[in-house]
């Protein structure tokens, strides 16, 4: 779209002629004390909670504490210029961020300023960062899957659009990797789900690496990155998830689907604790303020699946929590576990044992996603879950005894193969139909006779074979509509068996 100079001139003329604001009324106050990203301001008797305050020099703030004669505010941005006595004005606006397609592929700060050097953000719309979550009437149940492309998650801990699924684990157990895979999968499968990654208190190097990875995998153009890095003020870190959420809500409310990851809410709770203590709010357990639970619950409630009357859009949230030494029972983790619709628990031991993604399938649950699984997937996943549970039980015993009966040995063999099958390289999300066929090979016992070391190769080759020789079968798996709740439709199973037999006869060469 070319912009003609006459248009610009006309638009300017319109703006100047329509400019008839005779007075600017505002409420003013003066800074009494300032420091560590917060300010206490005397006056401002008309300020609203959450209102944007103008500190001059282009620095803005957000009113949080409204007291009798003073207002406690967080400063969004540089506070070097602000001193005692600085005049502060109200703006009459609640804190807002730019939203819309202009942000896709961009890295922005929590107030929507570009951080990637790609020029100004072109936003057509602004949205308040703090809004009330949709009510009961506006929602409907979660029933469309959000494919992460990670086998162990999509099969056993299925995620639905509009769900809140916690990713929890120690440092360096692959939490961010799961989010990256999910984002890449949306781009590869062209699901149309817009992704938002909110980095809170993360190392800037880690964020820039993630941005590069997404770019290399063609997923950045569909993604908004909101960064309040480790060196950003606590105020900005506090604001970041709400800002990211507002950007996601734009898509949710216009009937689209969005996915947002908050990486991570532990650091968000720290930032909020710092801000609260500096604003002299009373400390509670572990010095967190009393409303740290509400601070997270009102954020995560904004992830929702809207009913058809409201457009049927969705916002799926993956909050991340970092635990210390696998301890799930501390304050913030238990809080967020109770808010979310399930959790994916990543374990350091598994990670070090080479089981990656290091999902502990025993402790991970998805409370609503089962309804969202595709039919074929549900058919194979029930069996997988059962086999894996038996395997975990036996594996503990089998370490001691050597004399095992046949049935037990068979169960162990099966479990080891399935565990091997669930391993997946990073940045290699897998389409649903591939996942179903691959898991089917495992639960139908085909892998039992394959050497453990060959499981990965078997999977690769069989999927390749299926794609080239039986593309119709891939479609059938994907679009399976037969209403069988716990088992795979017999007709489909038969067709799969035939194809697998064909593969083993024609193309499979076991090494040994």
């Amino acid at each position, binding site marked *: 779209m070319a912009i003609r100079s006459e248009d610009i001139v006309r638009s*300017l003329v319109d*703006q*100047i002629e329509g*400019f008839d*604001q*005779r*007075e*600017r*009324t*505002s*409420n*003013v*106050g*003066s800074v*009494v*004390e300032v420091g560590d990203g917060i300010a*206490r301001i*005397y*006056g*401002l*008797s*008309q300020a609203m909670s959450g209102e944007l305050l103008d500190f001059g020099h282009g620095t803005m703030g957000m009113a949080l504490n409204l007291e*009798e*004669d*003073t207002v406690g505010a967080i400063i969004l941005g540089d506070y070097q210029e602000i001193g005692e*006595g600085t005049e502060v*004005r109200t703006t009459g606006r609640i804190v807002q961020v730019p939203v819309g397609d202009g942000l896709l592929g961009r890295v922005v700060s929590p107030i929507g300023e570009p951080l990637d050097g790609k020029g100004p953000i072109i936003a057509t719309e602004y949205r308040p960062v703090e809004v009330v979550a949709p009510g009961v009437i506006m929602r409907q149940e979660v029933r469309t899957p959000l494919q992460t492309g990670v086998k162990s998650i999509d099969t056993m801990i299925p995620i639905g659009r509009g769900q809140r699924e916690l990713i929890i684990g120690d440092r360096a157990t692959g939490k961010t990797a799961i989010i990256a895979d999910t984002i890449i999968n949306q781009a590869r499968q062209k699901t149309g789900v817009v992704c938002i990654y909110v980095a809170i208190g993360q190392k800037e190097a880690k964020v820039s690496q993630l941005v590069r990875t997404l770019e290399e995998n063609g997923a950045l153009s569909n993604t908004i990155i909101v960064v309040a890095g480790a060196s950003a003020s606590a105020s900005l870190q506090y604001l970041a998830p709400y800002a990211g959420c507002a950007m996601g809500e734009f898509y949710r409310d216009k009937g689209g689907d969005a996915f947002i990851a908050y990486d991570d809410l532990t650091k968000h709770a720290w930032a909020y604790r710092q801000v609260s203590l500096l604003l002299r709010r009373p400390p509670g357990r572990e010095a967190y303020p009393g409303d740290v639970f509400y601070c997270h619950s009102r954020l995560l409630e904004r992830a929702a699946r809207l009913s058809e009357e409201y457009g049927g859009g969705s916002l799926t949230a993956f909050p991340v929590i970092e635990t210390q030494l696998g301890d799930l029972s501390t304050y913030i983790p238990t809080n967020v576990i109770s808010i979310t619709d399930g959790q994916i628990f990543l374990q350091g031991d598994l990670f070090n044992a080479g089981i990656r993604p290091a999902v502990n399938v025993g402790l991970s649950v998805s409370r609503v996603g089962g309804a969202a699984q595709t039919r074929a997937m549900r058919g194979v996943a029930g069996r997988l879950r059962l086999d894996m549970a038996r395997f975990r039980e036996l594996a503990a015993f089998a370490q001691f005894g050597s004399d095992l009966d046949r049935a037990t040995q068979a169960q162990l063999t099966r479990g080891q193969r399935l565990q091997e099958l669930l391993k997946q390289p990073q940045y290699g999300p897998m389409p649903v139909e591939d996942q179903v066929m691959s898991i089917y090979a495992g639960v139908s016992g085909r892998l039992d006779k394959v050497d453990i070391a060959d499981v990965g190769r078997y999977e690769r080759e069989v999927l390749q074979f299926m794609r080239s020789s039986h593309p119709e079968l891939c479609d059938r798996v994907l679009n399976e509509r037969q209403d069988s709740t716990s088992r795979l439709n017999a007709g489909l199973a038969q067709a799969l068996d035939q194809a697998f037999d064909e593969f083993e006869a024609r193309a499979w060469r076991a090494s040994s």
Partner: protein
Amino acid sequence: MAGRSPAAKRYAEAVASIASQAGTWDAWLRDLTQVADALAEPVIRAILANPNQTVNISHFLDSRSMRDGLRPETIRLLRVMASKRTLGLLPDAVEWLHELADRARGVRRVEVTSAVPLDASQQRQVQMHLADVGGDPANVALTLQVDPGIIGGLVIREGDHIKDRSVRARLETLRERMA
């Protein structure tokens, strides 16, 4: 309008309720302003900073009150404040009291900034304009300031409320709108 102690406001409110009942606003303001000025002297401030101030202040109150002829109510207030060791709040309390007195008598203090000095008739016009409908323009107390930086128009400030009708503000708004 720096930060004033909220505790001082409580004392001011207490005095205000006595003053409005008895109609003794002027007497209170005169007395307390006098004491606050006296307390502002460095020597006396040092005495106030003394942790044993109750003893010292009692002597001080006796002598000063005899000389200056403070009213007995004022001395009672000072004794209460001294016994609670809050005499240091008095200057803040007097500021609050002035504000409360203005409010009780319907006086509004307005700071008017203009680019050029206003003559008497212009001041009168501003007062007329600022007085509420049916209000008395004489109750609007103007503090005049001249700031050529606003280019033209007026900036009217009452308490923490600003009505900016200056040319500078309009230009700034225009710039924001066109940015």
